[in-house]
């Protein structure tokens, strides 16, 4: 390419490996996280392919049952703790949050770097546990089995504990940043919805994660000293563990999905060239989801022997979460209505999100219904449901966000043609993989089994083939993204003609983000008023 990206960018100044490893620049830390989560995604993905391969046909295929237990446990733990929880907030959020509110950095840059190192340490401990023999309890580490299992549960839970710290510190940093570092004129209701989403996520991170922390400490103490509080033989209560665990892990579901919803708001408004419909509803629904998320943990325990009254209350509360989620979906649809939709790669991911997340959300209502859950509990229906939410929701949003902000992050465009191809392949592969699992589950195929009766064969085989299709999509993506570093076109500051703040600085931005502290005079989505300007901006001249 004849053209080079700007010389004065955070990517080049200062240079050298050390300047990266000691950086306090939120953009570099975001990139470091991106490297971390991508590595985790590859590890988790390979494990997923191994699971699917084992399930290609009935009977033992590749592994012993013991090995299979370890593989699905590691797949779950790696995907949850190492990949998805830090994915959008810590990687993309770190990169875009200060840019979106016109700040020079997050409030505590050194703490931010420390969070990344804590993440690395937690990852190393978790990987150590894998090499020291791996864990076979499932990623939820349920007692009493987890206190007795002879596998490396202690190391793995210690790793998760350390990772929790990293998550708390990121959340704390983001909350203070949003409260204290907004540029002049950036009122709360001029903040992009991504900021609202990250803010709500941060609230969950700091309110829920400490409880997971103490739970894991108790589990470790139980294993080391037999303190007996989760051990029924000693008068303890294993169900207490489940309460503690889900008090974190249900809100954690929203740590995963809320920032994804933030990305979707940005994408849909930008690529429909429309003012977002119901801005305040979307903003407040993020907060509502965050708060409601704390009241529903018991829906994971309908069959655990908790009281019937508790189950009924939890079931009812669970239905309430559907309201703010529905508000978001309808507002997005209303935003797209009569918009000038451009089917760019990020927009394709946003549309995939709308389809798959809706399926994931609706099937969640099945599971929140007491009587139905008794039938579906611990079947593949659950597996399909959470993959529709986590992969169909969060991962689609993450990919949309990565593509959307890629030119901002690296000052290079990827191949739009291959981008769209990959997005379509991933969407098809995803549905091929996980839709059959709904059917399997409703027919009674239990989860976490390495074998099954021949009647389930064709559905399982379809699912396995789907996982290969998806992998092809990911490989294509990896190829064109890597190629973009050397061959990508130079995008200009605002390739999408977006109105939000991050596009007003150079791509990639300078270390201080903005040459001059921005003064905010309008909201991030005032497309209707600015149609003329944005038509121009579309041709790469940059927003006003």
């Amino acid at each position, binding site marked *: 390419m004849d053209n080079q990206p700007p010389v004065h960018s955070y990517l080049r100044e200062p240079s050298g490996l050390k300047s990266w490893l000691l950086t306090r620049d939120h953009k570099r830390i975001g990139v470091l996280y991106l490297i971390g989560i991508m590595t985790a995604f590859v590890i988790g993905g390979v494990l997923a392919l191994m699971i699917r391969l084992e399930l290609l046909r009935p009977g033992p295929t590749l592994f012993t049952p013991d090995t299979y237990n370890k593989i699905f446990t590691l797949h779950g733990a790696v995907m949850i703790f190492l990949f998805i929880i830090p994915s959008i907030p810590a990687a993309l959020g770190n990169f875009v949050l200060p840019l979106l509110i016109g*700040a020079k950095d997050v409030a505590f*840059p050194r*703490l931010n770097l420390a969070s990344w190192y804590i993440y690395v340490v937690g990852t190393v401990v978790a990987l150590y546990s894998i090499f020291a023999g791996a864990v076979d309890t499932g990623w939820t580490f349920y007692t009493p089995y987890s206190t007795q299992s002879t596998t490396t549960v202690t190391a793995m839970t210690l790793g998760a504990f350390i990772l929790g710290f990293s998550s708390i510190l990121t959340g*704390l940093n983001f909350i203070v940043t949003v409260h204290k570092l907004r540029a002049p004129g950036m009122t709360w209701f001029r903040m992009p919805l991504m900021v609202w989403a990250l803010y709500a996520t941060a609230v969950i991170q700091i309110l829920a994660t400490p409880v997971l922390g103490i739970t894991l400490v108790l589990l470790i*103490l139980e294993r080391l000293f037999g303190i007996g*509080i989760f051990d029924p033989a000693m008068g303890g209560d294993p169900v207490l563990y489940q309460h503690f665990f889900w008090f974190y892990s249900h809100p954690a579901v929203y740590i995963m999905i809320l920032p994804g919803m933030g990305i979707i708001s940005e994408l849909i408004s930008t690529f429909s060239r429309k003012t977002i419909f119901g801005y305040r509803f979307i903003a407040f629904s993020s907060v509502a989801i965050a708060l409601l998320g704390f009241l529903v943990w018991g829906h994971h325990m309908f069959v655990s022997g908790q009281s019937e009254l508790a189950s009924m209350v939890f079931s009812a509360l669970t239905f309430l979460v559907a309201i703010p989620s529905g508000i978001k979906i309808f507002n997005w649809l209303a935003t797209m209505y009569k918009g000038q939709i451009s089917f760019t790669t990020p927009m394709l991911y946003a549309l995939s999100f709308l389809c798959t997340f809706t399926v994931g959300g609706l099937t969640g209502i099945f599971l929140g219904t007491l009587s139905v859950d008794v039938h579906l509990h611990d079947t593949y229906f659950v597996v399909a449901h959470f993959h529709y939410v986590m992969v169909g929701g969060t991962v689609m949003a993450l990919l949309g966000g990565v593509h959307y902000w890629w030119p901002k992050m690296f000052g290079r465009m990827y191949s739009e043609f291959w981008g769209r191809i990959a997005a379509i392949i991933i969407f098809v592969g995803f549905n091929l993989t996980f839709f059959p699992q709904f059917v399997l589950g409703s027919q009674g195929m239990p989860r976490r089994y390495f074998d099954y009766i021949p009647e389930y064969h064709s559905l399982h085989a379809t699912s396995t083939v789907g996982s290969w299709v998806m992998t092809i999509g990911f490989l294509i993506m990896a190829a064109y993204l890597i190629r973009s570093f050397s061959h990508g076109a130079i995008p200009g500051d605002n390739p999408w003609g977006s109105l939000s703040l991050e596009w007003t600085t150079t791509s990639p931005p300078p270390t*201080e983000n903005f040459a001059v502290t921005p003064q905010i005079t309008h909201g991030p989505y005032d497309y209707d008023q600015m149609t003329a300007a944005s038509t121009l901006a579309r041709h790469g001249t940059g927003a006003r």
Partner: protein
Amino acid sequence: MSVAADHPAFLQHHFADPRQQHESAKLGMWLFLVTEILLFGGLFCAYAVYRAWYPEMFYNAHKALDVLMGGINTVVLITSSVTMALAIRSLQRDRRRPAVGLLLATLLLASVFLVIKYFEYSHKIHLGQLPGKYYHFTGVPGTNPHIFFSIYFMMTGLHGLHVLVGMGVIGWVMVRTARGAYSHVYYTPVELAGLYWHLVDMIWIFLFPLLYLIG
């Protein structure tokens, strides 16, 4: 961009003015304290659950704790919170030497707390009033008395760990104060250390009646 004059050395580049930096630091600390309370909150829940299940046993077992030692420790910690607050007040008036003295007093009181705790712990270890499967004391009637001691050791142990961390932090700001790093213009780190220390104190004020007093 600000001029160098209103950009003193302690002001980090991404803040516009000292007030913004100070308020951010304080908000951050308060949020951190919330997470600390939630961390203990898990243990308080466990306490509540098992107390509701085994009220008799809790009653019998709590008598094994030494109210006198616990009481002295309560007084010691409250006093240390006072000396901490006074240290900050001295700094606000630019009186650095008394501030160092008061921080030192806080440190000494904290170590008194730990010494007393050490005697309590070693006595219990000696008697076999230990957590979980290591429990072999026979003097407490009722089923599963080891659960009480598990909870006792976990709560006071975690609290003790916080005392240790607090001592590290206070020692650090003490050295920095002695070296003249703080004045009435800038003493945020000391203030934050103070907030942390008050939390440690406050948690003990909950632990003491729950474990030692309630019958």
